[in-house]
């Protein structure tokens, strides 16, 4: 059988078409499954790393706040200390009223946060915010 002679101009697109033909590989499904497992594994590692980082960061933040030893009631403390103390008190009161109004909506009007001490409420708010921030970061990382 005689061969067809092809010029270089004809041969280049012919070779490109041959390269573009996708070979049939019998283990294509296994390849896809292995790749998806690797993607899942990468996500798990990232979630774990972020969770650990969040916990460590939260623990460090709590430790730092504890080490401040602010006396919120002291009127003659340093100016910066007083300002921080007043800010925390404002935040605490804001959080208290927000939580109380939420509780009213849920029919828990008799549940009084006012019975909790200022520092207790502060720690409760701080823990809630840390938990929310950690959850948001984890959610964002899973979506990215």
């Amino acid at each position, binding site marked *: 059988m005689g*061969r067809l002679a092809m010029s270089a101009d004809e041969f280049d697109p012919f*070779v490109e078409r041959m390269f*573009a*033909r*996708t070979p049939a590989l019998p283990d294509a499904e296994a390849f896809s499954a292995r790749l998806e497992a690797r*993607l899942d594994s990468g996500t798990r590692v990232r979630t774990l790393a972020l969770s650990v980082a969040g916990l460590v960061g939260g623990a460090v933040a709590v430790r730092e706040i504890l080490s401040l030893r602010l006396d919120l009631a002291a009127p003659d403390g340093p100016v910066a200390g007083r300002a921080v103390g007043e800010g925390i008190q404002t935040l605490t009161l804001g959080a208290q009223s927000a939580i109380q109004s939420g509780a009213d909506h849920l029919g828990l009007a008799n549940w009084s946060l006012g019975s909790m001490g200022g520092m207790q409420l502060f720690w409760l708010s701080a823990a809630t915010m840390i938990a929310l921030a950690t959850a948001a970061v984890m959610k964002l990382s899973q979506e990215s």
Partner: protein
Amino acid sequence: MTKALVDLHDVELAALAAAGGRREFGELVRRHSSAVRGLLRRMGAQPSEADDVAQDAFLTAFQRCSEFRGEGTFAAWVKRIAARLYLKRKSKDSRYVAEIESQEAAPSIDTPGLVDLDEALKVLSETERLCVSLCHGAGLSHPEIAAAMNLPLGTVKSHVKRGLDKLRARLRPEPQQYGKAGHVG
């Protein structure tokens, strides 16, 4: 109404994958993994090595999916990533460097009348095979190949020409496909 994954175009799937859609990316993998793995094997990779590089290429593609703008096909984009990853891996192999330096001669196999590209590629030297595959399989330009392989541009052109001459001597078109457009992978 939400379209089924199989009805979505590659560009739509890639956009969804860029937003974190792993199911959509999985569909892209199912569509194009064989093309990418096939290219790597044609470049000279052993099947297991080709699969490893293809896996890494798809993982890279998933991380960089937002960079795919749809100018070319998704398959071509991943093929380029895979080809570059394979070259990077090869460049760490001392045998590859020695082969380029010595311009190893191609094994001479007289097999006239072949129509199988994979078989025909075996008569090319490793460097010729890489250059031809990168040029005609991965769609890299000669300067891009020269940069990726750290070779002078003229040397790349010579390898491509010699490789194509060898292929032309061994390949002949099947009558029904000659002149027809092939599957665009």
